[in-house]
């Protein structure tokens, strides 16, 4: 057989060979599951780095307990500095050099979008991306990509329903970040309000994250005479908007997006008295809320944080988020059994039928289906009473 014949037959064999067994999946061996991740350990979003550190600590604990079905979890978590070009470089390194089975919890909308095409072309699962952007929940075009966070549009839908029910004659003013996050919010709101109620939004204003303050935007919005004020902003700008709207004596019902509900990082800087009566949707348990003091799930998280991280980490909602997702991944891998092919890992992640997490509100379950990968769709509204968030009403499905 000459070389050409050999090449042809080898190629033919590759095409007609039987489907790969789990052991043929890159990153999977009898003793190990190798997973890749990009995380902003440095740069402007490095506050999120604690998510990766928490997850690493959780898998270390799982490995000490024997791993999943006898396999140890090996999470390779690389720094991308929240810079998409760097994410691409690191993702290629993870997939091609480290030969990971899949990518998991890569953080940030721009970073995840940057590697989405690459992952889908190579059929490498890009699971539970740390972002709530609706662009990462598009199974029709990108079946190998799934988001971990409730998508922003769904949260906004819940606010729109709440407004229609409680304030049917409301005049709404919206402050939103001028990027995908803010636009998702506006879309969710407008979807629910529909053409019929579109006129309820009397004023929209946006800001860039590089602007020093949003004071001027808040003044403009107040000038519109609105009586419902929706703040779709990240923590610093949300704090500014909360303070300024109070200082202006604006008596509107203020709704703040869930990314900015932290008492320590947002409401304290804004002033607790100035934050009174804010409304927000929630799905996780607030670690600073005494209500969960004796909650088994939160005690579990507290014990883990004390032992493997720091006591302060318990109150860090980013760390708590990482913990919840690490728990979820272990459950998913358990449900894969011995079929750890990429296709089955994706299938298990996208066919969750009601997984409970220790860090989520009672009744909030992870549910995914092939047409919609966003796992958290239930939320409950809450009001800030000047000290902590008070839940009210039923769980709402977006």
């Amino acid at each position, binding site marked *: 057989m000459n070389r050409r014949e050999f090449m042809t037959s080898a190629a033919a064999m590759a095409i007609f060979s039987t489907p790969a067994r789990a052991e043929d999946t890159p990153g999977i061996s009898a003793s190990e599951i190798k997973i890749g991740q990009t995380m902003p350990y440095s740069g*402007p979003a490095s*506050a999120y780095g604690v998510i990766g550190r928490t997850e690493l600590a959780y898998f270390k604990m799982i490995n000490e307990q024997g791993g999943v079905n006898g396999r140890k979890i090996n999470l390779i978590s690389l720094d991308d500095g929240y810079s998409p070009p760097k994410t691409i470089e690191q993702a290629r390194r993870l997939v091609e050099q480290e030969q990971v089975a899949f990518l998991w919890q890569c953080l940030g909308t721009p970073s995840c979008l940057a590697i989405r095409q690459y992952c889908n072309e190579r059929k490498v699962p890009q699971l539970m991306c740390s972002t709530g952007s609706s662009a990462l929940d598009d199974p029709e075009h990108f079946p190998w990509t799934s988001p971990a966070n409730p998508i922003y549009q769904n949260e906004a839908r819940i606010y729109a329903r709440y407004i229609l029910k409680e304030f049917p004659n409301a005049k709404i003013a919206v402050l939103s970040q001028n990027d995908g996050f803010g636009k998702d919010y506006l879309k969710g709101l407008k979807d629910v309000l529909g053409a019929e109620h579109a006129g309820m939004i009397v004023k929209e204003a946006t800001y860039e994250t590089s602007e020093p303050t949003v004071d001027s935007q808040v003044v403009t919005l107040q000038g519109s005479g609105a009586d419902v004020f929706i703040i779709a902003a990240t923590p610093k700008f949300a704090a500014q908007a909360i303070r300024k709207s109070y200082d202006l004596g604006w008596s509107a019902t203020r709704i703040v997006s869930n990314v900015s509900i932290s008492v320590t990082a947002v409401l304290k800087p804004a002033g607790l008295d100035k934050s009174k009566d804010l409304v927000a949707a929630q799905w996780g348990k607030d670690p600073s809320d005494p209500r969960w003091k004796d909650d088994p799930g939160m005690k579990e998280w507290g014990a883990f944080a004390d032992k493997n991280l720091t006591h302060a980490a318990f109150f860090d909602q980013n760390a708590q988020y990482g913990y919840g997702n690490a728990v979820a991944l272990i459950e998913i891998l358990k449900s894969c059994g011995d079929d750890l092919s990429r296709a089955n890992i994706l299938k298990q992640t996208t066919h969750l039928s009601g997984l409970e997490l220790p860090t989520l509100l009672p009744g909030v379950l992870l549910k995914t289906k092939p047409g919609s990968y966003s796992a958290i769709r239930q939320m409950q509204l809450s009001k800030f009473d000047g000290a902590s968030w008070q839940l009210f009403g039923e769980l709402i499905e977006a």
Partner: protein
Amino acid sequence: MVELLHQLSSGLALGGVYAITALALVMIFQATQLVNFAQGEMAMFSTYVAWALLQNGWNYWPAFAFTVALSFVGGVVIERAIVRPFAHAPILASVIVFIGLGFIFNALAGFFFGYTVQSFDTPFNGRPWFGAKFMSAHESGAIVVSLIVLALVFAFFRFTPLGLAMRAAAQNPASARLVGVRVGWMLALGWGLAAAIGAIAGMMAAPIVYLDPNMMGGILLYAFAGAVLGGIDNPWGAVLGGFTVGVVENLLGAYVVGTEVKLSVALIIIVGVLVAKPSGLFGRRIVARV
């Protein structure tokens, strides 16, 4: 009308912060003919120092004074240790050093103090001044402080021998050296003063925009626009430019161009001024004989 007054006053208050930051830029430009892109991050870091002191129970004014003094020393040290070796390098090398310095201070602040936004105390508490109901006490205070800093800088250059020596060192280093001015030290002094003024800017900005490692990014851009508009070699011009940018940005954003391109106003001012009147409204035109 009420809305317009609110827009004006919040523009003026931030304009005060831009003005002080612009003054810091002017200080270094006066001494070296370069714009210090790390100015904002240095100011932010100084503000964190003040914040740490306040957290440890210091009173405001001692913490303020100590921070300004420490920033002065820090500025001198940076000039001596980091900027000096590049004194004879091409301008681009210096610019890269400044940008690198900015990144270093940003990362250090995050490392030491975290990325969570912090509220920052103001000495100007209580009821709004002069019964001005559109401006908080701190906002009025920030404007007054910016004017005081301007007066001090002006007096320093105009009436003190040291200020005269600094001007001489900047304008004609060779002749200055011949008459006994220590030119190198004058540059270090310029850096120290700029760092001290920057610290004041940071401490006036933080109660308005909240303290976090990225606090000064946008402010520096606007301050630069202000300095360019007023003339980057003229303290009066820079301060007036800072106030103008603060107000114009708010008014255009609210009534003319909309919030989506509000930030671009600063960039348009920079480009527009550099094209139409490169020396700024009040700057001196420098004519070099070749």
